[in-house]
Structure formats: structure tokens, C-alpha cells
């Protein structure tokens, strides 16, 4: 009994150090309900709030613009760069604000710069492609060029250059069209600040390289390859002959035919297809690719041409 009496004072102290919650390695059943509840509360508040980076207190537009140019290793004129990043919607919004406050500060938007940049890009990409894919007819070049200066490609390039937060626009996140237009304006700004060659190399490095790993034939939809091929061949006076050179499982759903095209009794190309007609059409497509120098085994497109290439001579192959 004396033993118990002696230690009875220690017991409350010991109880203090026993942890209330016990760690266990079980499935955390509280995680999903908690996340769901959080989501419910967030939705009640009116959805997820994205705070644009440029509304933060320590955002320094001037420093960002300077860093933007330095990141790309280009010497932009600072005023032109700011103008290139100013969208029309932002200017309108600011003017409304200024009208309320009754002050008048002139702001320039990027429409003229974008127009200039677009024009320069069109011309330069056209010349570049004509030099690099010198056998491809003008229609094909045009289709590839239109792909390269499409909103989808340009907005993608623009986004990954990090323009999203620097752009001054009324809305956030900015629309793809604004991203693309800003990129065009950037090219225009570079054209005015550093001259044609720097701008050309900028376009080459960021836009034309988007062709890397792509099949250039996919951009040009040839409606009737057989007619096109026969018309081109008939000019040379050679004889073109399609031959069925392979067929597999012809009575089944999985029938596959192979048609070879023979030019003066020498095999030119071959194509596969579910029917003989499709195989013949594919063979004609392959032949056209061979003529245009864009076959599967072509050398990779040269992305290292310096300067602005000269316009190629009038003796161009025309598809029509």
C-alpha cells in the first residue's frame, strides 16, 4: 500500500504525456470528403479565382519587359515593346477609366505593329520555304505558310515565350487571338528596332521550326492527285502505267491492295489501300511526293539559313 501511495502523485503527470491521437497507417478516409467539402465551398463562393500575376503588388512591368527582351537575346526598343504588348481592348478600357477621371493620356495599341509583323512574316516564310522546299509548287508552299501563320501555331509559340502575363488586355486569361496578335506585334517591334535580318532570324527560330517533326504533305490537301500527276507526266511525254503488284485476303473485310506506278516501265512509287482505287490514288500521292521532294525519307528541313533568301526564279513548277 505504501508503494501505491508513494507513486500516486506521478500518475497524472504520466497521463499528460500520453498522445491523444494515435498514428496509424490506414486508408485516409477523410481525404476525399474534405476535398469535396472544400470544392463545394469554393463553388458557393463563385468558382476558382485566378489572380493574374500582373495584379500582384510587386509586379514590375518595366523590369518584365526588359527581361523579356534579354531572355530572347534580342535588343527591343522599350517603347515599341510596350506598345507590342498593349492590346486594343486594354486601351479602350483605360480610355473609359480616364474619361471618368477626366484626364487624357495617349496610349498606342499594337494593331499597326501586328499588321507590319504579319506582312513581314508572310513574305519571309514564303521566301524561306521556297528556298528550303525548292521542288514544291507555289500552292503547297502557300498551304504550309498559312499553317505556320495560323492563330493556333502563333498563339502556341507566343504562349510558350511567356507573353501571357505581360500582355495588357481587358480580359484574363487572354484569348488565343490576342496571343497570336501579340506575337505578330513582337515581330513588328523587332523589325523596327533591329532591322530585317534580326527579325527574320527570330521568325525562323520560333515559327518556321514548328515544322520540325511534321509531315509537310499534310498541310496541302490535294483533291485529285491522279489527274495532277497525269497532267504533269503528259508534259514530259513519258508513259505512266498503274499495275496491281500485290493483294492480300481479297475476299475478306481486311483486303489490302498494293498498286505500283510505272514510268516508262520503271517503278516510280507504290501505294496501299483497302480497294484498288484507293491504292492507285495513294500511289499517285507517293509519286507526287517524290516529284516535290517531300517524301517520307526526305532530308530534314534546313532551319539554319541565314539572312533573307532571294526570291526564286520564274521557272517554277506549277501544279495547275
Amino acid at each position: 500500500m505504501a508503494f501505491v501511495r508513494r507513486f500516486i502523485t506521478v500518475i497524472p503527470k504520466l497521463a499528460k504525456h500520453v498522445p491523444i491521437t494515435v498514428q496509424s497507417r490506414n486508408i485516409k478516409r477523410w481525404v476525399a470528403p474534405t476535398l469535396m467539402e472544400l470544392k463545394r465551398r469554393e463553388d458557393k463562393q463563385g468558382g476558382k479565382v485566378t489572380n493574374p500575376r500582373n495584379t500582384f503588388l510587386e509586379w514590375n512591368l518595366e523590369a518584365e519587359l526588359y527581361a523579356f527582351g534579354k531572355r530572347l537575346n534580342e535588343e527591343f526598343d522599350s517603347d515599341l515593346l510596350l506598345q507590342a504588348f498593349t492590346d486594343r481592348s486594354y486601351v479602350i478600357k483605360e480610355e473609359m477609366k480616364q474619361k471618368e477621371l477626366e484626364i487624357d493620356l495617349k496610349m498606342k495599341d499594337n494593331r499597326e505593329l501586328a499588321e507590319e509583323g504579319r506582312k513581314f512574316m508572310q513574305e519571309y516564310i514564303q521566301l524561306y520555304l521556297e528556298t528550303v522546299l525548292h521542288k514544291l509548287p507555289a500552292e503547297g508552299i502557300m498551304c504550309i505558310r498559312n499553317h505556320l501563320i495560323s492563330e493556333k501555331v502563333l498563339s502556341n509559340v507566343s504562349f510558350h515565350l511567356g507573353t501571357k502575363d505581360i500582355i495588357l488586355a481587358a480580359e484574363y486569361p487572354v484569348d488565343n487571338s490576342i496571343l497570336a496578335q501579340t506575337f505578330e506585334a513582337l515581330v513588328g517591334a523587332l523589325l523596327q528596332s533591329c532591322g530585317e535580318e534580326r527579325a527574320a532570324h527570330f521568325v525562323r527560330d520560333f515559327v518556321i521550326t514548328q515544322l520540325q517533326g511534321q509531315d509537310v504533305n499534310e498541310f496541302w490537301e490535294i483533291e485529285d492527285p491522279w489527274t495532277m500527276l497525269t497532267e504533269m507526266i503528259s508534259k514530259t511525254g513519258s508513259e505512266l502505267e498503274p499495275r496491281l503488284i500485290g493483294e492480300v485476303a481479297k475476299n475478306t473485310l481486311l483486303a489490302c491492295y498494293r498498286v505500283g506506278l510505272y514510268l516508262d516501265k520503271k517503278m516510280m512509287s507504290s501505294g496501299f489501300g483497302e480497294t484498288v482505287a484507293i491504292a492507285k490514288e495513294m500511289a499517285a500521292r507517293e509519286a507526287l511526293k517524290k516529284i516535290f521532294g517531300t517524301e517520307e525519307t526526305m532530308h530534314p528541313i534546313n532551319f539554319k539559313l541565314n539572312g533573307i533568301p532571294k526570291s526564286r526564279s520564274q521557272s517554277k513548277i506549277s501544279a495547275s
Partner: protein
Amino acid sequence: MSAAKRVQQWATFARTWHIFDCKWQDPYQSADLIKKYLMGMHKPIYHPMNDCGDVVVCINSRDIALRGDEWKKRAYFHHTGYPGGASWTLAWEVHNKDPTMIIKKAVYRSMKGNLQRRHTMERLLIYPDEEVPEDVLQNVTNQIRQLRLVPTRLDHIPEDEVRKFPKVMDYPKDYVYK
């Protein structure tokens, strides 16, 4: 997917129909060969989960050749599932009952037992003789080389050709054959 890519895929996964003549062939060795074509193992794109197997048409399965006294000794086991339902049938009995059965069982046994096996077997067509339906024959575009040469039997060679064959000596007229 562009048109060029589509037909490339179509051609890559095209199912070729092969024909194999079982005449005088060992069914168990042939099965290992046929299996490769059925499963598509002869293709560079082969993968167990890749549906790239071809179709094989076996003809003359009545004329297969078993080694030694295998016709008499090899037994095929079957169990009905009921007590006392086990039965052992000799190879020659099975072959008399169904001349396609031995080659079919050989190919089936040569493949690993998985869910795919029965579907792969559907692509094996066996005919006891040379009579193959016309629509099947039209699909065939390749022949699998036989493992062994089919020997020519002496009694199948025309008699005058045998007589003309150079000999070292002739038996005397009054020679009595044993």
C-alpha cells in the same frame, strides 16, 4: 490521321493468307512452324498483345507422317467429366475418325494456354485433301515451305521409266526370288 498514315497502318496490319501442304510432314514439327504464322511471330511488329496473326490453310492433312510406331503408340486422352469417363484413343483411331484432328491438336498444343489461343485457332483452316473451297483459295497469297521433301515412291513412278533406269546387272532368267 492523314490518308498516307492510314493506308500505312492498313498495310502493316494486313492479314496474309498462307497455305501449308501437310503431305508427309511431321504434324508436331509442322505445328511449331504453323504457330509462328498464326500468331504473327514472323513479323517485326509482333507483340503478344498485338493482333497481327495471319491465316494458315492446311491441306492434305490426311497424308501426315508420324514417326516410328507413333501411329500405334501415341494415345489421345479425353475425359467426359463423369466418373470413369476417361478414354485413351490411339493416333491411328483418331486419324481414321477425323483426318484433321491430329494436326489441329498439335497446333493447339504448341501454343501457350491463354485466352488468345482459341481465337488464334480460329484462323487455322484444315482440309483433309486438296479440295479447298474456291473463295478460301482466292485469298491465299503465300505458301509456307514444307519442312521435309516429299519422297517419291517407287510404285508411283511409271513402269517404263523404272525399266529404263540404268542397272549394274540383271538377275539371270532362271533366278528364283526368295
